[in-house]
C-alpha cells in the first residue's frame, strides 16, 4: 500500500489534465485500486465495529476459514461480472476471474489495515487469531471492492439543479459558501447514516479503551486519509464539477472541514445514545468520539459524492 500512497499526489494532479494515452496506465490502475479500497472501507467498516465477528474469527478452524475464502471468492466473482471495481464495461471470462482475485486480495489488505488501525491485530495477537479475524473481516471488505464501481458512482438522473445564469453576476463567494454548505450537509447525512447504527454499541467504548493514547492520532490520520481518497483520489463522482463549485475550499480544507462535521456528529450521536455523560472523564469523550468519527468520516465522504 505504501507505493500507492507515495504516488497518490502525482495521480490526483495529473487527472485534472486529461491525457488519453494514460487511460490504462499506472495512474488509471492506481485510481482503480483506490476506488476499490474506498468501496471496501465503506462496505466493511460497519462489520468492523462488531465484537462478535472478532471472536467468531478467532475461534474458527482452518478448513472453515478456507471455505469462507472460497465462498467469498465465488460471491466476488459473481459481483465482478456485473459490477467490479475497474471501469471497464466488457470483460472476458478470464479477466473477470483475475479481477475477482484482485478484489478479494485488495479486500483482505484493506481489512488488515483497518484491523491494525483499530488495534484488533497487533504484535501480541496470536497467529491463529490474526488469520481468523482477517478472513472474517475480509468478507465484507472484499464484497465492498467488488461493489465499488456501482456503490459510489453518481447516478446521472439524480444530478442536482444549478442556476448557472446568475452565478457570474453574483458575488462568487456567496455561491461557493452555499455549495460548501451543501457539501457539509451531505457530509452530515452520510456520517449519520453510517455511524448511527454504530454509536449505541459497546464496541465504540471497547475499541477506544484498548487504544494507546497516541494511537488516536493514527485513527484520526486514517479517517482523514480515507475521506480524501474517497472524494478526491478515486475518481468517483464528478470532480470537474466539484472543482468549479468548491473553489472556496481546497481538497485538504474540505477534508478537514468534513472531519470536523463528522466529529461533531459523532459526539452528538454518542450523547444522544447516552454513551457519554458529563461525569465521564474527558479522555473517554475524546477517545470514543475519535473512534466513532472513523466510520462517520467515511460515511460523510460517500455522502458528498452521492448526494
Amino acid at each position, binding site marked *: 500500500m505504501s507505493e500507492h500512497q507515495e504516488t497518490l499526489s502525482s495521480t490526483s494532479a495529473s487527472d485534472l489534465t486529461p491525457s488519453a494515452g494514460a487511460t490504462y496506465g499506472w495512474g488509471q490502475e492506481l485510481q482503480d485500486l483506490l476506488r476499490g479500497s474506498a468501496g471496501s472501507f465503506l462496505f466493511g467498516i460497519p462489520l468492523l465495529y462488531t465484537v462478535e465477528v472478532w471472536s467468531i474469527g478467532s475461534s474458527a478452524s*482452518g478448513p472453515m476459514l478456507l471455505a469462507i475464502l472460497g465462498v467469498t471468492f465465488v460471491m466476488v466473482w459473481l459481483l465482478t461480472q456485473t459490477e467490479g471495481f475497474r471501469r471497464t464495461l466488457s470483460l472476458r471470462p478470464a479477466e473477470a476471474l483475475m479481477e475477482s482475485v484482485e478484489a478479494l486480495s485488495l479486500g483482505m489488505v484493506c481489512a488488515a489495515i483497518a484491523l491494525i488501525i483499530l488495534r484488533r491485530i497487533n504484535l501480541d495477537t496470536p497467529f491463529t487469531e490474526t488469520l481468523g479475524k482477517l*478472513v472474517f473481516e475480509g468478507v465484507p471488505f472484499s464484497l465492498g471492492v467488488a461493489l465499488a464501481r456501482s456503490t459510489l458512482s453518481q447516478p446521472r438522473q439524480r444530478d442536482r439543479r444549478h442556476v448557472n445564469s446568475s452565478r457570474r453576476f453574483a458575488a462568487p463567494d456567496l455561491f461557493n459558501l452555499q455549495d460548501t454548505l451543501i457539501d457539509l450537509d451531505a457530509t452530515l447525512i452520510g456520517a449519520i447514516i453510517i455511524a448511527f447504527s454504530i454509536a449505541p454499541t459497546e464496541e465504540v467504548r471497547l475499541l477506544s479503551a484498548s487504544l494507546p493514547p497516541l494511537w488516536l492520532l493514527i485513527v484520526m490520520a486514517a479517517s482523514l486519509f480515507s475521506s480524501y481518497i474517497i472524494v478526491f483520489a478515486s475518481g468517483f463522482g464528478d*470532480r470537474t464539477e466539484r472543482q468549479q463549485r468548491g473553489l472556496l475550499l481546497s481538497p485538504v480544507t474540505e477534508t478537514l472541514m468534513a472531519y470536523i462535521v463528522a466529529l461533531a456528529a459523532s459526539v452528538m450521536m454518542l450523547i444522544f445514545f447516552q454513551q457519554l455523560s458529563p461525569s465521564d472523564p474527558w479522555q473517554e469523550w475524546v477517545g470514543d468520539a475519535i473512534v466513532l468519527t472513523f466510520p462517520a468520516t467515511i460515511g460523510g465522504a460517500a455522502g458528498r459524492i452521492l448526494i
Partner: protein
Amino acid sequence: MSQNNPADSPTDPSAASQNNSEEVKTPKTLLEPRTERSLAEWVTFTIAALILSTLIGLIIYDWQANQNRPPAFQVEVTESARITDGRYYVPFSVRNTGGRIARTVQVTAELLLSDGESESGEQQIDFLSGNERKSGSFVFAHNPQEGELLIRVASYGLP
C-alpha cells in the same frame, strides 16, 4: 461548464461517473473488449495472487500445526504485589501453551493464611487462543507474603 449532455446518456452508462471532456471519448474503448491487460494490471494481479496464496498457505500451515494441540495453561505471578489503600494487588498472567482456542477460562486464586483463614478470588477470561497471553490482578485484603498463594486455571470451555 459541466452541464450534462442528455444526448449521450442512453448509450453510455459509464459516463455517469464522470463527465469530463475526456470522458466523451473513453466509453467506446471501455466497451470494447481489450486485447490485453496493461502492465500495471498484470503487476496488480501478480501481487494480489501472491497475497491470496500466502494467506491460504498460512491458514493451511496454522491448521496443520495447531489442530492436534488442545489448550494447556501456564499461570504465573508476573511481579510482586503492590499495596494501594491497604489492599494487595497481585498481578498474574495466563498463557495458552496449546494450539487450540479455549473459551471461558476460569482462573482462581486462593490465599491460605497462617492463622487458618483464607481468601479467594476468581477471574474469567472469555477467549484465550493458542499462544495468547492475558493478564489481570487479584485483590486481597491480607498480605499474600504472609500466607500461601495458589493461582491456577480451574476450568475452560471449548468453542
